[in-house]
């Protein structure tokens, strides 16, 4: 192929051309806006160079919402294509690209950063720390994630998107069957973002182990922090496997190595194994923090402490270990020995036990509580029955013999959306609402939020439950159309209507944010929900240094004790506070990573080498840099605290 022809889209369509125009116009508007309102400096010094975990969390949140939109548009297009038999809205290639990018974007660039957003924002506050252990590394993590995501996202306007599914099985993903650059984007975009994620895991494990407030033993950690701790450990064990798999995949595509080929000894099943050794724990990387979030929300709105704390922790640890021993259930039908299938069938089903324990604990927490039906609580209550249905169908899938029937059908698609949407999406939406006042200093409108919840829940049921039926009847997944005679038409139409309701729910969520920015009261108390854990003991929005005085922890619910049992949370006087300095390094280095990745995607070697050198120069510069941070003086702290009305409240 000629140099320039590689940048063209393999199957251009009016949809893609109009998105190109839309992207161009948006970028232009942003540039003009920033210049007009003279915000460039603010953007640079306040955000692009920040190392504050709260701001990094907020940037993750914004990226995740954007990606939810991108992945959601893909979903709507897919369901629109399948709404009626023999539809001609999308062609098969376009459909392949959309289900592939939808899967990747939703899992890696929407759910992951959403979880990271909450981890970043909440964990240091919950443990009474001033920041994470390595604030700069945290910024690097975010920017690498961001650049990886952006690299992946430009694929559909430059060169074409990956089309081999989110699991990118070889040999389909090899050069022979995926000749355009799409899969290069997959390999390299995910690689860059993945390195960022691994760094986050290391950072948070160190933070939680070492930076807890005095008195906070491991068995006094709030549930969300526990889940983040366990998640960090899974990340550290799982992500290097992905790194290796992606390197090998990249080399097969760019350097004609023979890892996953059919000839010359290559082995396509090796990809499947490596991918799922990472991929299965990955779903627990998403669901465990989500469980943690529910465990924060449910006690708060039941006015009761969490039932079965110890069993909650134990089941999480158990799940995290077990998640590494079930990956083979992703290829029950690919011809392995029956005893292998049986073993993995059993290990898979066993995970239902600790999960069931958690469900019962949440139910028992609510049982004797006095429930307040706020938006976060609605999401948590909606989660329980829906997730249980998803879990039951999961056990059905785990029966390897029966899987020959479900395999690669819409039944599977229904199952995993049935766990991931109520499990993860509900959790992050609920927790986003819950922590909103901490982040921004005002509450989200509850009325619109409830509408959004109902649209999402009803839409979800309409969209996915019909797929169980069509799946059992044999409607295959990843097929761009079906014929009239199959009789799948009406049920798919219902699915499409459900999807449309979910899309409306997204619009409502964005509208709540807009509405609340304009109308919500800025005068919220520091503890608007009457919550129980430490993050609510500081101000709304949280000052740069989190806590003017490091809190003293005496129990699992120190803050509750401070409010109602006279525990003294903040002892002693203000002292000057040490803070890290902002730095442009992480952002600049990640930009160079972007260029490097782009050059690799298109095999522009000289640019790749320049990029690589650039990355090394950044690292070398960092190695020589002397930066001891700065101090916030006692006067400044007093001033800030006075503005909020003082910490003395809980003294």
């Amino acid at each position, binding site marked *: 192929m000629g140099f320039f022809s590689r940048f063209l889209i393999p199957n251009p369509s009016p949809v893609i051309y109009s998105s190109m125009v839309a992207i161009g116009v948006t970028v232009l508007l942003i540039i003009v806006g920033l210049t007009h309102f003279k915000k460039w400096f603010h953007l640079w010094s306040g955000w692009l160079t920040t190392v504050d975990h709260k701001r990094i969390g907020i940037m993750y949140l914004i990226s995740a919402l954007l990606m939810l939109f991108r992945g959601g548009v893909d979903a709507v297009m897919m369901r629109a294509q399948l709404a009626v038999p023999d539809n001609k809205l999308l062609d098969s290639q376009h459909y392949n690209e959309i289900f592939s990018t939808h899967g990747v974007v939703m899992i890696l660039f929407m759910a992951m950063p959403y979880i990271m957003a909450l981890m970043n924002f909440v964990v240091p506050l919950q443990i009474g720390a001033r920041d994470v*252990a*390595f604030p700069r590394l945290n910024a690097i993590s975010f920017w690498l994630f961001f650049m990886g995501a952006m690299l992946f996202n430009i694929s559909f306007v430059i060169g074409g998107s990956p089309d081999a599914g989110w699991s990118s099985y070889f040999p389909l993903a090899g050069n022979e069957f995926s000749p355009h650059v799409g899969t290069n984007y997959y390999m390299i975009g995910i690689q860059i973002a993945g390195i960022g994620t*691994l760094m986050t*895991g*290391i*950072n948070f*494990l*160190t933070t939680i*182990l*070492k*930076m807890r407030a005095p008195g906070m033993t491991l068995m006094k950690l709030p549930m969300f922090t526990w889940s983040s701790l366990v998640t960090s450990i899974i990340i*550290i*064990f*799982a*992500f*290097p*496997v992905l*790194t*290796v*798999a992606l*390197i*090998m995949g990249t*080399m097969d595509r760019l*350097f*004609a*190595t*023979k*890892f996953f*080929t059919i*000839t*010359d*000894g*290559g*082995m396509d099943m*090796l990809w499947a194994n*490596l991918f799922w*050794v990472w991929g299965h724990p990955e779903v627990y990387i998403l669901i465990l923090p989500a469980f943690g979030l529910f465990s924060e929300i449910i006690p708060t709105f039941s006015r009761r402490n969490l039932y079965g704390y110890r069993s909650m922790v134990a089941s999480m640890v158990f799940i995290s270990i077990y998640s590494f021993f079930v990956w083979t259930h992703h290829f029950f039908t690919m011809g392995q020995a029956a005893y292998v299938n049986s073993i993995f069938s059993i290990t898979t089903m066993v995970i239902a036990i600790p999960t069931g324990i958690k469900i019962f604990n949440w139910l028992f927490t609510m049982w004797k509580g006095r429930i307040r039906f706020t938006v976060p609580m609605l999401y948590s209550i909606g989660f329980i029955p829906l997730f249980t249905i998803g879990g039951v169908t999961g056990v059905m899938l785990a029966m390897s013999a029966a899987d020959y029937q479900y395999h690669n059908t819409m039944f599977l698609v229904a199952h995993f959306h049935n766990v991931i949407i109520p499990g993860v999406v509900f959790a992050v939406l609920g927790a986003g609402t819950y922590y909103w006042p901490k982040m921004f200093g005002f509450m989200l409108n509850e009325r619109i939020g409830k509408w959004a919840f109902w649209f999402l829940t009803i839409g979800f049921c309409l969209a996915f439950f019909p797929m169980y039926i069509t799946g059992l009847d044999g409607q295959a997944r990843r097929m761009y159309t079906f014929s009239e005679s199959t009789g799948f038409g009406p049920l798919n139409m219902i699915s499409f209507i459900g999807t449309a309701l979910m899309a409306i729910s997204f619009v409502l969520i964005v509208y709540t944010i807009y509405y609340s920015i304009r109308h919500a009261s800025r005068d919220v108390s520091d503890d608007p929900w009457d919550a129980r854990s430490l993050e609510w003991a500081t101000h709304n929005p949280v000052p740069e240094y989190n806590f003017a005085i490091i809190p003293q922890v005496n129990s699992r619910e120190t803050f509750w004790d401070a409010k109602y049992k006279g525990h003294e949370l903040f002892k002693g006087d203000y002292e000057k506070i*040490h803070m890290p300095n902002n730095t442009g390094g992480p952002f600049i280095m990640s930009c160079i990573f972007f260029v490097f990745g782009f050059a690799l995607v298109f095999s522009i070697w000289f640019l790749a080498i320049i990029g690589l050198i650039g990355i*090394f120069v950044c690292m*070398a510069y960092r*190695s*020589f840099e*002397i930066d*001891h941070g700065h101090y916030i003086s006692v006067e400044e702290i007093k001033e800030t605290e006075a503005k909020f009305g003082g910490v003395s409240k809980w003294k």
Partner: protein
Amino acid sequence: MEIDHSQPLEYSTEQNRLNILGFWIFLGAEIMLFGTLFASYFTLVDRTGNGPIGAEIFEITPVLAETFLLLTSSFVIGLGIHAMRLGNKKAMLTFFVITLLLGVGFIGFEITEFITYYREGATLQTSAFTSMLFTTLGTHGAHVTLGLFWGSFIILQVKNRGLTPETANKSFIFSLYWHFLDIVWIFIFTFIYMKGMT
């Protein structure tokens, strides 16, 4: 920065202790990385296609030289850290320089080894086995090469800034990294070369 003088320099501040723990955790991730490479290697080792098998291309001499150089360097950097603990900057720097020189020697042998394989018709593209072999060795070699740069930066810093909690911390972490590469090499030596040659 509060400096705790009862501790060795590299542990003497809060941030230093965090850095060291963080680096241990990072090494945990590195173990997974190399573990995955090894697992893939064992999967593909017999899948040689039309290319050579290990026993046909491996040669004992350069491998022994590489092993000797890397193991010695790992010992020497230990001496370097010992000198650092004693506060002897000059001795420490000397040991660090020797470590890196041994590392350069290692890389030199590895490159000639690769060239020999290439001449014998075992290239990155020959078979799944050779792809995997070069990738595994190459990943280790790339780590050593990166270490050579990193180590020299640290030497420059210790030379110019003296032994401070910061430079001591960096040197210590670098020594952990270097020992780790040595351990990985022992696995490579045993399970790739020794096993491949018999």
